[in-house]
C-alpha cells in the first residue's frame, strides 16, 4: 500500500505558538468560558440582591418575556417564525408540533450546550427531559429556574390559549435535581387540562410530576451530548445538525440566554445608580486574579498552549497567548498587532467582540473581560503587567498587554 500523500487535516484553533487545539476541545473550552462569564454575572446579581426568591423570580420573568419577544409580532409573523423553525428541523404536524415546540427547542439547545441527556418521553400531553450532566451547574440554581421560565415561554408562544398572552398551559417541574451539585436533572412538562393541574408561579417549578417518570439507570447515562459523542446532533424527527453548527450556535446563543437575558433583570436590581457598573469590574477582576494563583495553573496553561521555555514567566506573550486562545475558541476573529516581550496588542472589531449574536450586543463583554484579564495577568505573568482595552467606542478595539503603573488597582 502506498503511503499517504500527507497528514490528514484536522480542524482546530491554532494558538499563538502554533499548537492546534482540536475542534471538540475548543468547543468545550468555549462553552466553559461562557458559563464562567455567566457565573461572574450571577455573582454581581447576588451582591446587588441578597434575596434568592426575589432575584430568581425577576430573572425568570425577564427570561420568559425575552423569549416571547423573540417571536413577537402579529399572528402572521409568529406563524412565519414558527414555520421557519419547523422547516429547519423538518418537524411534522403529526406530533402536535405547536403543542411541544418548547421541548424541541429546549432539546437542541441543551444538546448544543453539552447538557447531555435525552427527551425520554414525547407524547401528546407530556414531555420528559432527562439531563445526565450539566456543565452550567457552576452558574447557580437561579439559572435552573430561569430555564423553566424560558421553556414556559416557548410552549406558550406556539400553543398558548390566546395569541400574545402567556397562558401557562403546562406545568413544568424540575422533579429531580433542584439546584446545583446533583448531576442528574429531570424536567417534566404536563398539560394542565390533561392532568388536572394548576397554573404555577415562577418559584413553583420544583414539584413532582403527575405521572411516573421514566428513569435511565445510572450505568446507562451519558457524559457528553451527541455532538461530542457522535459528531452531530440528531433530533427526534431524524434531522441532523453538524457539530460545526452546534459549536457556532453556542458561540452565538450561549451569550444570549445565559448572560444577555439575565443582565436585563440584574441591571434593574441596583439600589443606587452606578452600583452595577461599580460591582461588575470588582467581581470580574477578583475572578481573574484567582485564575492563576496556584503555580501549577500557570504551568498547566503553558503546557496546554505549548508556550516555549524561551518565553519566560514574566513575559506578556503568555497572557497574550491565553487571550488569543479564549477568543479563538469563542470563534471571535482578531488580528495580532504586536506580540513580543515588550507587549501584546490584539485588534478586534467591536461588533464582533460584543455582538456575538449580532442582534443582542453586550458592552458588558468588554467591561467584564477587561477587568478579568487585568486581574489574571497579575498572577499569570506578574503585577508589573496590565491588560486594558483601547477604542471601546470605535469600530475596532485594541486589547493591550503592557507595563502600567496603576495607583488605584481594584
Amino acid at each position, binding site marked *: 500500500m502506498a503511503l499517504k500523500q500527507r497528514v490528514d487535516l484536522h480542524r482546530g484553533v491554532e494558538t499563538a505558538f502554533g499548537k492546534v487545539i482540536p475542534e471538540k476541545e475548543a468547543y468545550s473550552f468555549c462553552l466553559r468560558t461562557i458559563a464562567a462569564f455567566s457565573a461572574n454575572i450571577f455573582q454581581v446579581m447576588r451582591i446587588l440582591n441578597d434575596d434568592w426568591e426575589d432575584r430568581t423570580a425577576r430573572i425568570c420573568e425577564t427570561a420568559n418575556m425575552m423569549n416571547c419577544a423573540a417571536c413577537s409580532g402579529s399572528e402572521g409573523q409568529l406563524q412565519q417564525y414558527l*414555520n421557519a423553525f*419547523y*422547516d429547519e428541523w*423538518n*418537524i*411534522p*404536524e*403529526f*406530533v402536535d408540533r405547536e403543542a411541544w415546540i418548547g421541548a424541541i427547542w429546549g432539546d437542541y439547545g441543551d444538546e448544543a450546550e453539552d447538557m447531555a441527556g*435525552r427527551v*425520554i*418521553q*414525547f*407524547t*401528546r*400531553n407530556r414531555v420528559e427531559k432527562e439531563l445526565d450532566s450539566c456543565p452550567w451547574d457552576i452558574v447557580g440554581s437561579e439559572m435552573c429556574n430561569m430555564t423553566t421560565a424560558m421553556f414556559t415561554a416557548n410552549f406558550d408562544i406556539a400553543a398558548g390559549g390566546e395569541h400574545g398572552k402567556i397562558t401557562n398551559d403546562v406545568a413544568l417541574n424540575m422533579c429531580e435535581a433542584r439546584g446545583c451539585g446533583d448531576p442528574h436533572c429531570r424536567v417534566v412538562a404536563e398539560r394542565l387540562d390533561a392532568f388536572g393541574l394548576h397554573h404555577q408561579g415562577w418559584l413553583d417549578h420544583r414539584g413532582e410530576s403527575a*405521572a*411516573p*417518570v*421514566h*428513569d*435511565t*439507570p445510572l*450505568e*446507562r*447515562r*451519558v*457524559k*457528553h451530548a*451527541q455532538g461530542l*459523542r*457522535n459528531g*452531530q446532533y*440528531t433530533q427526534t*424527527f*431524524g*434531522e*441532523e445538525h453538524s457539530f460545526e453548527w452546534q459549536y457556532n450556535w453556542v458561540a452565538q446563543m450561549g451569550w444570549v440566554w445565559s448572560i444577555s437575558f439575565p443582565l436585563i433583570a440584574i441591571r434593574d436590581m441596583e439600589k443606587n445608580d452606578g452600583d452595577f457598573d461599580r460591582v461588575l469590574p470588582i467581581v470580574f477582576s477578583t475572578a481573574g486574579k484567582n485564575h492563576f494563583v496556584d503555580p501549577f495553573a500557570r504551568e498547566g496553561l503553558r503546557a496546554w498552549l505549548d508556550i516555549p521555555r524561551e518565553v519566560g514567566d514574566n513575559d506578556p506573550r503568555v497572557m497574550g497567548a491565553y487571550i488569543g486562545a479564549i477568543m479563538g475558541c469563542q470563534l471571535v476573529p482578531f488580528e495580532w498587532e504586536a506580540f513580543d516581550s515588550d507587549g501584546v496588542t490584539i485588534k478586534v472589531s467591536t461588533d464582533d467582540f460584543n455582538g456575538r449574536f449580532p442582534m443582542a450586543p453586550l458592552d458588558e463583554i468588554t467591561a467584564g473581560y477587561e477587568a478579568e484579564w487585568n486581574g489574571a495577568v497579575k498572577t499569570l505573568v506578574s503585577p508589573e503587567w496590565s491588560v486594558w482595552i483601547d477604542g471601546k467606542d470605535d469600530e475596532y478595539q485594541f486589547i493591550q498587554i503592557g507595563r502600567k503603573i496603576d495607583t488605584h488597582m481594584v
Partner: protein
Amino acid sequence: MLFKDDEVARADALAVRKDSGWYRWTHDTVDVTGADSTALLDKLLVNTVAQCNVGREKYTTMLDDSGGIIDDLMAIRLEENHWWLSTLYGPQMVRWLGEHAEGCDVAFSDITPEIDMFSVQGPRSAEVMDKLLDAPVDELKRFQIVDASIGGISVRVDRGGFTGELGYEIYCSRSDSDQILKLLRDADSRELQTLEVFVRSLPMEKGMALRQDYHHLTPFEANLGWSVHLDKKGDFVGRAALEKAQEVGPRYAFVGVEIERESYEDICQNEIVRKRGIPVGKCRQMIYGYTVGKNIGYAIVDPKRCPLGTKVTIGPNDSPAVIVAPKWC
C-alpha cells in the same frame, strides 16, 4: 420506571395488537393535480405509479440524485389526475416537486393545514369503523381509499396504517376535527396516549420504518430492492445512481438490533455501533416492543462485518446488542 414498566404505554400497544385503538395521526399530505401529475410522479418515484388504479395507493420511495432515499411514502390516486402523497414533512416535498416540475401541467401544494387524520387500528377496527360510518367499509381492500360519511360528515377512509394490523385511516376537513374526535371518543375503542407506541414501538415490531431510518440509504440498502424495477421502468430521479449502486453492492445493511440489557434508554439516533471496539455503523432508533417484550431497534451497519447474529455494542456505555433481522412479529 423503565419503558417496559410503563403500564399506559403497554395498554396502548396491546389494545392495537389484540383489540382496537385509535389516535390522531396526521402525516403531512401533499396534493398533486394536473394532466402531467402522473408523469411527474413517475419521474420522481421509484415505483411506476401510473399502474396504480383510481382509489388505490402504492407504497414507494423518493430518491435524490445520488440514489439516497429522501422519503418513503404512499402515493394515493384519488382521481385520474389527482394524487395525495403522504410524507413526514410536506414543505420539503413541495420544494422537491417544484424543482422538477418545470414545463409540466401540474399544480401541487401542502394541504396538511387543511385536513386532519385519525387512525383506527387493531383486529377489531373494522367493527369499530362499521359502527362509526354511515355505510360499512369492511369490504375495503388493503390500500384502497373511498369517500364515506361519519355522522353526516364527509370523510375519506382508506384501509391501511402504520401498525401492521388491520386498520383504517379517516381523513376529514380540519373544521370537522372536533366532531370526529367526539364520535371516536364515544366509540368502543381505546384512545392511545403514548406517541412512542404508535410512532415507533408498534411499527418497528412489524419491521416498518420512518423516513429518518431510511434517510440517505439506497432502496437496496433499505431492504426495499423489491420495489426497484430498472428493467421495466424508464428514467427517474436517482436511476443512474441506483444502476451504479447495484453494480458496486450495498455500503450498508439495514438491520435490527436487540439490546441484551434491561433498558435501552441511553441510546439515541446515530449512536455509534461497534464490533470488538471498532465502529461498524450507527444506530437509527431504539424502542421497547411491548408485544415481543424486548428492547429493539434499527441500525445501519457494514454488511461484510455484521451478518445476522453478530455481537456488537452500541453507544458510549457499550450496550451489548445482537444483529437480527429488522422485523420481530
